[in-house]
């Protein structure tokens, strides 16, 4: 009997939860805010689904009900991707070590 591909995806999912668990515990508490903003940005990889949805129409009718929701989702996810990564970058740039020569 063949294994349902769903089981493989489930395995990826479960193992990723464990990876997430160990990786996040090693994040230093002082960077917890950037952690939240960057997880925000990467969870917007949902834009992949939004793009598929947006391009679901054919060449004559770009816009149908389904693709409009896709386009809206693209815009929302793009706000998050750009906003999330840039604000993280901005925050991380502020974390500096003590200057020795002072």
């Amino acid at each position, binding site marked *: 009997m063949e294994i349902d591909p769903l089981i493989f995806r489930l395995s990826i999912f479960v193992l990723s939860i464990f990876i997430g668990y160990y990786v996040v515990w090693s994040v*230093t508490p002082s960077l917890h805010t950037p952690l939240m903003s*960057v997880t925000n940005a990467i969870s*917007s*990889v949902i834009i*992949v689904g939004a793009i598929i*949805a947006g391009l679901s129409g054919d060449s004559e009718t770009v816009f149908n009900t389904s693709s409009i929701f896709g386009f809206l*989702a693209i*815009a929302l*996810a793009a706000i*998050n991707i750009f906003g999330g990564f840039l604000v993280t970058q901005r925050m991380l740039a502020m974390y500096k070590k003590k200057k020795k020569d002072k």
Partner: protein
Amino acid sequence: MISANLSAIFYLVSGVLFILALRGLSSPETSRQGNLFGILGMIIAVTVTFFSIGNFSSGFIYVLLFILIGGSIGAFIAYRIPMTAMPELVAGFHSLVGLAAVFVAISAFLNPAAFNLGTPGNIKLGSLIEMSIGAAIGAITFSGSVIAFLKLQGIMSGSPITFKGQHPLNALILISIVIIIYLLCSTQSSNLFWILLAVSFLIGFLLIIPIGGADMPVVISMLNSYSGWAAAGIGFTLENTALIITGALVGSSGAILSYIMCKGMNRSFFNVILGGFGATEQSASSQNKEQKPVKSGNADDAAFLMKNASSVIIVPGYGMAVAQAQHALREMVDTLKKNDIKVSYAIHPVAGRMPGHMNVLLAEANVPYDEVFELEEINNDFSNADVAFVIGANDVTNPVAKTDPQSPIFGMPILDVEKCKSVLFVKRSLSPGYAGIDNDLFYKENTLMLFADAKKMTEDITKALD
């Protein structure tokens, strides 16, 4: 057009890059590189999606257009947002992830063929289950985050909103969501799909309104986690590895942060999400309102105390964020350092409105991160320090958490400022903190209260030090 197998490998690569992005955050030095890995992972995922669809017709232009619109809005916000508003921003971003997940699910439900999920009215069972779970969690994330955003922004009152029968009602709605999903999957009825979304929006709203302002660190982390699970649900529907990996990472990240925040308050997760904390305790504090003597002082007294100290520990709290006092604080510390006084900062895990809130504000004010310490690292140093300068914090220093088993905050880990030779409290008034309990420290012999706006007081002390 590239093959499904090749694109799956690229999605795996971007998933791994996202893991590295989080890994980088283990230290500030590696964090910036980590963020670049994250960006690279996103670029790969988006590009591969374009190539795997292979449709570069007019629709493609619109996709780019919408990315451009969203991207400019996002970039604009990212550059303009003040650091003190970070909790609101993160809550706002969570709501967008939630809504995007809902929209993708709607789109997939209306046009399943585009996603290889079957035809309308005859969607593959597994996909429909995954889709409806993703949509429901996405909707909860959206409306919950909107409420969190409104509370943090001050548009909605931060105090808990409770009513009779709240918990039974919420439980009933949650059970009905499970039933609706079951019915939806057996009948494929589109009406049920819309009802599912409506009910999920409602429960997200109802779940967050009873939670008070100071519990927001838990709420934000929890919603962070939800947004991850929503993404994972959609990832299963789309059979997309990058989304599944990311969803799992974000989901567990948010869950761990919620756990850390709950532990910082010594409260169980359920105690926090059931809400109502703070509102019930106010009556207790008003009962014993006998007048106790308080020593209050001005900036000169504070400056005198600190000038004669050899080490000072600063304890910032939410009040510092509200007063935007972080820059003034750093200037004061610079003056102290010129006088050869050792200064360090002590951060309680739940100080502020989100995990790490204080650290970001201090970093913004150019405080080197190696002068900033977590509770466990610094708590033993209070007994050797001369002055504790508490600015905008209250409950996290309250010794009652150790002494009075009746107190609502009993057992919460606190910063031992009481062990310092003298304690300076910058506060607007004697009013109790969020938990509604009096702080014995205010009435201690070696405590000096500085009643003023945190920013103004800090600036005055700096002047007095010169």
